[in-house]
């Protein structure tokens, strides 16, 4: 099955985690309690979050996009190295950054966020861990013989 899909286990995990990351970005991320009015749920695309909270989603999308292009769009030539970094290294870098950012969101202690972290946040955290697992698996997998 995986052979048919031309995907290794590591790449499959990256693709799945990347898709989950993008979809979960549309779910409520944090419930904030503004000074006036009731608590408001925000996604990572909401004002005040768009940017630093959206970054893990963009990193996951780049990772899944590269894997998807390499596996399914055989006519598209993806360069083997970018700025001297191989794709295995780029995946590790992006995944580590995504995990660090999500763990930082977990640790941050702001009064406005006292209403709690929402489903989207927890799914994004799990997806970031999934991206990291996929990147590590990808590095450990034997390289295909060309």
């Amino acid at each position, binding site marked *: 099955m995986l052979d048919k899909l031309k995907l290794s286990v590591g790449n499959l995990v990256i693709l799945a985690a990347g898709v989950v990351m993008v979809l979960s970005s549309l779910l409520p991320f944090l419930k904030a309690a503004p000074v006036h009015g009731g608590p408001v749920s925000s996604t990572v695309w909401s004002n005040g979050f768009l*940017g*630093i909270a959206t970054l893990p989603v963009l990193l996951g999308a780049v990772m899944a996009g590269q894997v998807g292009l390499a596996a399914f769009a055989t006519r598209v030539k993806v360069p083997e190295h970018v700025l001297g*970094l191989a794709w295995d*290294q780029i995946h*590790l870098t992006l995944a580590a950054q995504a995990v660090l950012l999500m763990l930082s969101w977990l640790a*941050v202690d702001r009064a406005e966020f006292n209403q709690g972290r929402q489903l989207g946040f927890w799914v994004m955290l799990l997806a970031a861990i999934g991206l990291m697992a996929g990147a590590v698996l990808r590095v450990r997998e034997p390289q295909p013989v060309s």
Partner: protein
Amino acid sequence: MAIGAVMLFASFLQFAGGASTWSGAWFPLATLLPLYGTAMGVKIALARFAGISLPDEVAGFAPEQLELAVACMAAVMGLAWVATDVGDRQIGLWIEAAGGIALAGAALSLRRERRRARVFG
């Protein structure tokens, strides 16, 4: 090294909302950026002044690749902070963002120099 020192110093200045990157409101989300800069500065200072350098390979990265990867992530985070509506962006945020972008520029320039040195012996 200079960029790392500036980023560490700026991390104690006001970042946004009258708080520094070390205050509960921003730590550790905004502190990652100065930490990346400081780590790169310390690495270069150790190599330059104490002759201590990283092993030839760390997690599959050569030292110069690691520098470039960290610097590029710092630049991406810097741009993300500029794009984020945090209310009043203060001096610390602007210095951190500029520092992140400057780190990437410095790492790319170092890479070019090393490649040139390799080619011309």
